């Protein structure tokens, strides 16, 4: 082949190659072609597990009768049970309510199950709405139970109300105090048939508290474990706890008790904080005796905790929250604003704003409020948990003090049912967090079903307090997702609070992909 032809051929080949590569590199379109169909997940409906609520029973006394025996906790007295059971349950074949008293810690006796809801209980009790056919809608209409106990002894005073709860594997408590004169007992009941293991992580104003003794604890099946928090969390006045369970679901409460010297200062069952949100509503701030409290605090500083207090926990970013684009890292700060609105024109309320450090618990005193009915609207730059300590002070009774921890309310959208405690004076505190008016039907189950229940209207941002008849069965029905409520019961200068709960077993519809 002649030299010229060879050069021409080589050059042309090289030119074509470079052109092809350049064009291929620059002008390649972006596209994709899907090959093969994906099997779609089938929606399967599974009968919901029977609704089971666990009640703590009566209050726990540490140290035994003498109060000096280490590690000994016994339950004193009995608590009244306030339950609402759907009439449909009675009418449905194969449905029943079963109560099983669970053995307390250290108690080896086997207690037989009772049917129906007992009037009073002493031991932790699991109450189950058995529905073999799975036909009944679950929720507070089917079964809602709470307990109430008044303690009035020389070592133990206060009104303890507990909402019986569905067992869970993940519980938060925003409340508690283990400083001098303050006792916190974490009561964990395992109603399942397998042992559960729990880990408790504590947070305070400085962040996470190292407490190795609170991890890897075993709660035997059907038993209750009582933890003296002071053993591991000494002198912690600002606390939030996270309990996680594996192996079985558990129910838990934080029993908080105050002793000022030899004078009991009140007690409370603190229930789990269920709400984690950028916007929380804490109804039930029904202040009474503020003047008494102010007078006592002036001369006796140990009564300083008789002022209302907002406790906020700002969780740090987790993997889940990061996936959802929310949460800040520990050490950063977020702004939290609490608007406390009064129910009447005379009670203006107040506004609190503070920069809080992520990963810590902060107590914000609520000062300057006169007696009245208030609701706190808490907002933050990231989801937070919050609760309010509501005190009661009666200086005429040596003085008599008590407190309760109000939890952020869940949405009331739908129908909620509860029985008003038979003891004391109970009020329903409502708050409307939306920018529009909200309506609520409030009445007996029959009235709600018939649609003849009275309607309560709340303007945007409004608060309302409604007195309830003791022992009454109450249903609430609303379309609004912004309404929140708490029950506050006053009895003989003591106070307790109950959240409006609606427990139901989830996952009635599951997506199943069989591969």
């Amino acid at each position, binding site marked *: *082949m002649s030299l010229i032809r*060879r050069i021409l*051929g*080589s050059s042309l*080949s*090289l030119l074509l*190659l*470079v052109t*092809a*590569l350049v064009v*291929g*590199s620059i002008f*390649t379109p972006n*596209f*994709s*072609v*899907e*090959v*093969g*169909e*994906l*099997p*779609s*997940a*089938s929606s*399967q*409906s*599974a*009968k*919901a*597990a*029977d609704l089971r609520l666990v009640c703590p029973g009566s209050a726990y006394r540490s140290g035994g009768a003498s109060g000096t025996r280490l590690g000994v906790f016994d339950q004193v007295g009995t608590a009244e049970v306030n339950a609402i059971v759907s009439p449909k349950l009675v009418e449905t074949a194969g449905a029943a309510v079963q109560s099983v008293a669970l053995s307390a810690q250290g108690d080896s006796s086997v207690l037989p199950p009772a049917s129906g809801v007992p009037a009073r209980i002493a031991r932790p009790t699991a109450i189950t709405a058995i529905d073999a056919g*799975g036909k009944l809608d679950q929720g507070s209409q089917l079964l809602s139970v709470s307990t109430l106990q008044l303690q009035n002894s020389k070592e133990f005073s206060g009104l303890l109300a507990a909402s019986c709860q569905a067992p869970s*594997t*993940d519980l938060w408590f925003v409340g508690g105090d283990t400083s001098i004169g303050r006792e916190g007992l974490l009561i964990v009941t395992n109603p*399942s*048939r*397998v042992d559960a293991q729990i880990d408790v992580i504590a947070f305070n104003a400085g962040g996470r508290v190292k407490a190795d003794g609170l991890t890897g604890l075993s709660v035997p099946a059907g038993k209750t474990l009582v933890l003296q928090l002071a053993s591991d969390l000494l002198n912690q006045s600002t606390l939030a706890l996270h309990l996680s369970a*594996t*192996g*079985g*679901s558990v129910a838990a409460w934080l029993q908080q008790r105050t002793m000022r010297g030899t004078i009991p200062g009140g007690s409370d069952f603190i229930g789990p904080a269920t709400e*984690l*949100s950028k916007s929380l509503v804490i109804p039930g701030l029904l202040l009474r005796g503020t003047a008494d409290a102010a007078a006592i605090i002036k001369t006796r500083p140990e009564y300083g905790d008789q002022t209302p207090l907002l406790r906020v926990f700002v969780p740090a970013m987790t993997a*889940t*929250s990061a*996936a*959802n684009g*929310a949460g800040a890292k520990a050490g950063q700060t977020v702004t939290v604003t609490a608007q406390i609105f009064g129910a009447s024109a005379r009670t203006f309320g107040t506004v609190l704003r503070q920069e809080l450090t992520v990963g810590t618990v902060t107590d914000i005193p609520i000062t300057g409020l006169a007696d009245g009915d208030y609701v706190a609207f808490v907002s933050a730059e990231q989801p937070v948990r919050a609760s309010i300590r509501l005190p009661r002070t009666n200086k005429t009774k040596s003085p008599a003090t008590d407190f309760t921890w109000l939890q952020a309310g869940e949405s009331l959208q739908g129908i909620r049912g509860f029985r008003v405690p038979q003891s004391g004076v109970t009020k329903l505190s409502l708050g409307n967090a939306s920018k529009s008016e909200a309506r609520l039907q409030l009445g007996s189950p029959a009235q709600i079903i018939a649609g003849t229940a009275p309607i309560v209207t709340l303007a945007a941002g409004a608060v309302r307090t409604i007195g309830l008849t003791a022992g009454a069965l109450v249903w609430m029905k609303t379309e609004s997702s912004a309404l929140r409520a708490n029950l506050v019961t006053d009895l003989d200068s003591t106070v307790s609070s109950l959240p409006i709960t609606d427990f139901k*077993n*989830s*996952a*009635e*519809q*599951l*997506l*199943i*992909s*069989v*591969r």
Partner: protein
Amino acid sequence: MKPFVTAVVVATGDSDYLAVTMQALRDQRRSADRIILVDTSLEQSIAQSNLLPAEQLISAKGAKNLAEALDSCRSALSEPSKSTGEEHLEGWFWLLHDDSAPRVDALEQLLRVVEVSPSVAVIGPKQLQWNDPRQIMQLGLTLTRAGAIFSPVAGELDQAQHDHVDDVMAVGTAGMLVRSSVYLAVGGFDASAPNLAADIDFSIRVRRAGHRVVVAPDAQVAHAGLSLAGKRPKRWLGTSPRAALRRANAHLRVAYSSAGVALLYVLFSPLIGLARAIWSVAAKHPNRIWAELSTGFWVFFTAFRRLRSRSLVRRGSKLTLRDLDGLRATRQQVRQQRLNDAVREDLEVLGQEAVVVEANPLLQEGAIETVRADQRSKSFGGSGAYWWLAALLGLSLGFWPSASAAVGGGVLPLSSDWYTLFTHAGSSYQNIGLGFFGPSDPFNWVLLAIGSLTPWQPSLALAITLFLAKPLAFIGAWKALSLITARGWARNLGAALFALWPALTAAQLEGRLPALIASVMLPWFILSLARAAGMGQNAPRRSAGRTWSWVGVSGLLLLLLGSSAPNLLPVLLIAIVVVLFSRLRKFGYLLWIPLPLAAALTPLVYFEVVGLLRPLATLADPGLPQPSSLHQFWQLLLGAGANTTALWGWGGYAIWITVPVLLLAALALLSKRFVFASTLWLLVIGALVSAWLVERLQFAAIGVGSSAIALERVNGSPYALLTLAAIGLIALAVFALDQLSVTAPRRIFATITAVVTVLPAAALFATGHTDIHHTDGRVVPSIVAAEAARGSQLKTLVLKDVSDSVGSSTDWASGRGTRHLTAELVSGDGIQLDDVSTGYRFALAGLASVRPEYARVGQLVADLASANGTDVTPALRDSGIGYILLPTTSSAGAKNLAIALDANDALESVGQTDYGRLWRVTHPNTELSVAPKVTPSPWSITKVVQLIIILGFILLAIPGRSVANGKRRESEIFVGQTDEPNGGDEFD
């Protein structure tokens, strides 16, 4: 007595050959006393007018053999006196074929033998080639010691070297002069015998009757051999010439063996035919397969006719066959004949490529040492390649099998025993999920081949393969580069480049087993294809046998490549077609290469294209689906190196290390042989474009065994195609270096390439992260594996909560939403690599919607997850579930699922295992908890066909004895002698 010769010409119709034969007959110096033309054609095409008045035309319409043809003129043969009226005549007939023209003195010479030797009854002439009278076609026939028909003199030049031969065992019928009385006494030709056995059978009977059979070398007949050339009507031989010859041998075996042997032979003839067919493949004569098989069945179905011939054999016998042993062919003769046949076959097929001589007689004294030294430097050891191998082994130490199974990336252990692995290959039913009727992956054959290396522990072979991937790739590339260059250092450099190429390294580190296997085997395939096609330099001696061996190897390697990386096939098949049409002489050989691949792939391709209407699914990689990064075209050109070690904002350094190779490859276009370089560049671009397209295909990835990944779709893997492109680029680079005539620039470029590409690539491989680790091969908890080992057929339900994964409908803010669970049913000892099925992946969407069992399992899972107290024991029994496994994960969904399972009375917790939490079903299906009474058969029609073809190709691939080792006689002169000691053309 005076001989009366009747010339009988048997014709299968009018032809030019007949005209020449008849004229030669008429021109005889000693004319035949009578001439009879027997026309056996069906159309009666010979006219009487073509004959002289004295010549007689007899119609034997449709006669299928000589016996029937001669029967038509039997009376003329038996009574010569009647036609002449003379007494004292001895009748002889001279049998001629229509393609056998006697020389003018042929009859005279034959009769001279009669005069000299009155005891002779049959005389045969010297048959010469019709087109080349210098070559002897036949001079007598005999049998070998084994009883096969043997022509002692065939294909030799006539130099009168055999003119001393007289007594033989048999003569051919073309030009045979027979004493009529003897013919009639022994019963004539056997009508039951095949035509190609008739002459030898007749002659042996004549011998056994006490008469002599001789050849008359001075009597010469030109014979065209139309029967053996297959140019006669098919009814004459009844089959192809090769099969006809085989039938002739088989008939003689039955007729002349002892009664017992004959009976056994007939009864087992199909098996004997099968065994001989297999032996033909092993002996590199696959063209004899049909002949052997058909003969076996022919003997069986014509057994009575074969056995009937034995009575004719005994008729009038005075001698036994053993008495004729002195006339049989010696072993020496048979060996020499085979050698000659092989060389002749090589010359016919390979032409100038066939190498004959061992040493070049033109080499001067002393030059031999130079040649030997040069050959040593080109050898693998002489070029220092072993040092490179050692270095690669050292780099691969991270893959050293510290336990019996490798796991990680796309690698799973294989089945624990070889038999299970065997049952999975080519099966039509997959015991995965809820059972799947569909073809298994062709890749299972590859896994079977690998697992067979360590049959006591198949997974170990897989682990060893991962360890040896780079050394094997190096050796393959080294061998393949020998097609282009003889320089040892160039081959070392090119092979190292290939072994360390980024795509191959990535495939190894990420555990992309199918792509890795395909990549390692690619250069071996290229080498074998080139050798089969007779292309490339430095070829060893070529022969038909070796060509068949390379065809066998190529077929197996193409099967391996196509099964491991189906997306390679479009480019490879185009390349094969190009080679096929550039080597038309080898068409008959090369055409068979895709056969094993076609056999293995057809069921799956048919299933996906016709059954599922998913033609693109055929391009999906087998094994566990693994996602691949999307690359730009220029990144693919550079080898798709990992984007690591940022280099001043130009991207990772690893991407750019292949630039010197690309530049050299481009330089190849400026060489003299730019056409060759352009062709290679076309291959490279084709591979890169295919890789780019494949990456854009999103294959469904959900199926049994895919629970390890969260993705629903994975894009196609380009690594095998990138390796193919790499081979092209490296070949071009080596070619460019080889073409450089000046040493200095060659050394500079090579050094730059070694420093910029090889060393960094080695470092990247050595420091690269891999997920591959080694375990004992279990993929399920020990208790499940132990129960499976005892034969339990219970399945394990593997549950996973994917509610938190991408795309779920969980509402984060409220923590509520729809739970989404996945469920896999795995059988026995879990999902191994040979259980994974591509067909199942693409069929699952349809299966789940039409088979009610999927809905039942879904409901079961929902009931288990909700812990609603439903009695799930019947559902667990129906589904054959014995265990439930929850893989270890810290998600809230998994915790809740575990709690729900704990709460179920039908389950008891076994506890935490290496694979997650395990529960045992309290009351499982007891029938399934024991080994099955009847083991399901591993066979299917598909599998049998595939296995036969694969085994056949394995036999074909096994090298046979070298033809060059045979001795040749000095008098032989062969055409096609080459003067290149190393033979072969340059690669073109």
